[in-house]
């Protein structure tokens, strides 16, 4: 188990290193002089030269990359002259609402998905199965930004049940915060539920066909214990992996959902930064996003190994 975890950590570090190279190259590909962009409209030649040297842009690309990597590793993302704030602060402030939305959607989605997947598998080819799988496919096929608008139209504009937009930190006012989270979390959570419910169903069907399920029935295990103990314990292991794999999709969905509900998260930060050509912020936001995806995948892989005795006990 330890060996497995260590090797996965090693792989993750490798992936992150390549991510850093890709990101560095992407940022160098941006047309225009970054110094000019950073300085805005009014500046002196002296300020230009100073910033250029300060950013290390007068040195070779390799050195630039190493310096850049060094800064990032120390968590120094620099100062945004366009937003007049520390980039790290900006990104951190935007990260919290996004994370909050993603977690709420993850929980809501899983709560919906697992029972519906089980019901669909248990009553395969029945109206229940077709019904829940039909809803699932619509759920993840509906673009989240459009679904959000529909929800606002129905539940805010017409019924007035939930607020249409905004964000309040949970520690500032918990009730208000949850209240405002309902529609965004439903938007994103139903997308996630659709994806996961299908996986739960097919994974469970696959496991129910295996020999050890038949052997457990032959032992006298009842139908309920068969499904909920014997089959589900195995069927949910791949589901955990899928949840991890879909974390990126969830984060991407959050970017769009935030825009609809005017939540001041990573998505809005990034898009705004692109329009103001504040590339330091764009770069930091993307880096943090990718870092989250990679770390979640690492976590999922390790928990997968933990859930799976074949890896936990021997490797």
């Amino acid at each position: 188990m330890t060996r497995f975890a260590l090797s996965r950590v090693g792989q993750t570090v490798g992936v992150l290193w390549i991510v850093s190279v890709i990101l560095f190259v992407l940022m160098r590909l941006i047309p225009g002089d970054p110094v000019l962009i950073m300085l805005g409209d009014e500046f002196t030649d002296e300020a230009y030269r100073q910033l250029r040297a300060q950013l290390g842009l007068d040195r070779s690309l390799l050195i630039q990359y190493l310096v850049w990597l060094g800064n990032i590793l120390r968590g120094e993302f620099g100062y945004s002259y366009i937003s007049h704030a520390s980039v790290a602060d900006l990104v951190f402030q935007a990260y919290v609402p996004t994370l909050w939305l993603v977690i709420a959607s993850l929980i809501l989605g899983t709560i919906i998905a697992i029972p519906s997947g089980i019901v669909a598998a248990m009553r395969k080819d029945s109206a229940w199965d077709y019904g829940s799988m039909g809803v699932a496919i619509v759920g993840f096929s509906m673009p989240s930004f459009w679904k959000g608008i529909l929800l606002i139209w129905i539940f805010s504009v017409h019924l007035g049940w939930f607020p249409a937009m905004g964000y309040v930190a949970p520690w500032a006012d918990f009730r208000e915060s949850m209240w405002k989270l309902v529609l965004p979390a439903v938007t994103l959570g139903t997308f996630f539920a659709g994806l996961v419910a299908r996986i739960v169903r097919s994974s469970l069907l696959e496991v129910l066909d295996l020999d050890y399920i038949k052997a457990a029935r032959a032992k006298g295990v009842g139908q309920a214990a068969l499904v909920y103990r014997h089959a589900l314990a195995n069927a949910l292991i791949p589901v955990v992996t899928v949840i991890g794999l879909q974390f990126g999709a969830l984060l991407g969905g959050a970017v769009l959902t935030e825009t609809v509900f005017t939540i001041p998260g990573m998505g809005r930060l990034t898009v705004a930064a692109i329009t103001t050509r504040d590339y330091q912020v764009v770069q930091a936001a993307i880096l943090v996003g990718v870092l989250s995806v990679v770390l979640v995948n690492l976590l999922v892989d390790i928990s997968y190994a933990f859930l799976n005795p074949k890896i936990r006990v021997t490797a």
Partner: protein
Amino acid sequence: MRTLDGLTVESPGVTVPTPAAEPGAAAGIGRWWRRFARSKGAVFGLAVFLAIVVMAVFAGVLAPYDPLTQGVGAPLEKPSLAHWAGTDSFGRDMLSRIIYGARIALIVGIVAVLLALVAGVTLGLVAGYYGGVLDAVIMRVMDALFAFPIIILAIAMMAIMGFGVTNVIIAVGVGFIAPFARVTRGDVLAVKEEPYIEAARLAGIGNLPIIFRHVLPNVLAPIIVQGALRVSGAIITEAGLSFLGLGPPPPTPVWGSMIAEGRNFIVMAPHISTIPGVALMLTVVGLNLFGDGLRDTLDPRLRR
């Protein structure tokens, strides 16, 4: 051997004759179709997809108005007999814009996926067939690319390249390379061990002919399935970019931008957001159902 039941498929630059020859090809397609047609969802998905294709191809004939002309009706008109889907804030006919929007959606979706397919399959073939350091390097880069959420990678690329349909296609396409490379490589690794590949090698056939004539045809089915399933993802991604204002610039009729514009009028004129979204959702649902059907009938590993 995994075959496509006799389907002959174009691959990058090479025509690959699959084993089933003349009479077999038609019969193979017929057999495949009978299995495919058993799933109502798959047939429905195909029908919806074809309807959207017809809409896109014949947009010039089907659209009642020019999609860009302003003031063909009053601004923010509700759906009526004259304007079935109402008008937008510039008084443009929404139905015409939606019909033309299908063009952009399909072009971006299909071309971006083809781009990703060609690049990803090539990388996957090379990595899987040659193995070693090449494999390790390619696949680690793919892992890194895979870590970028598609929409975020596309946002970054749009920031670099600027707006416009071509750039949207490139941005979305790059985001889908990794999944194709992974699927291809995995299957190549399995096929590579088959005795007929070894036989071909012993017969002195070069690596490239082996890859294209013997390996590729045997890994095509899952690639095609991936392709079909990814087109819907590409269309959603394009719509998302456009919704964020990072897609093709106005006044191009794009579903995502229309939905974004309608947000501002959600109280007075909800049709502006809702109706283009229906078109988008139907396209995506149709493609997903069709892709599921393809997967169930073409990809023997995933068949259930």
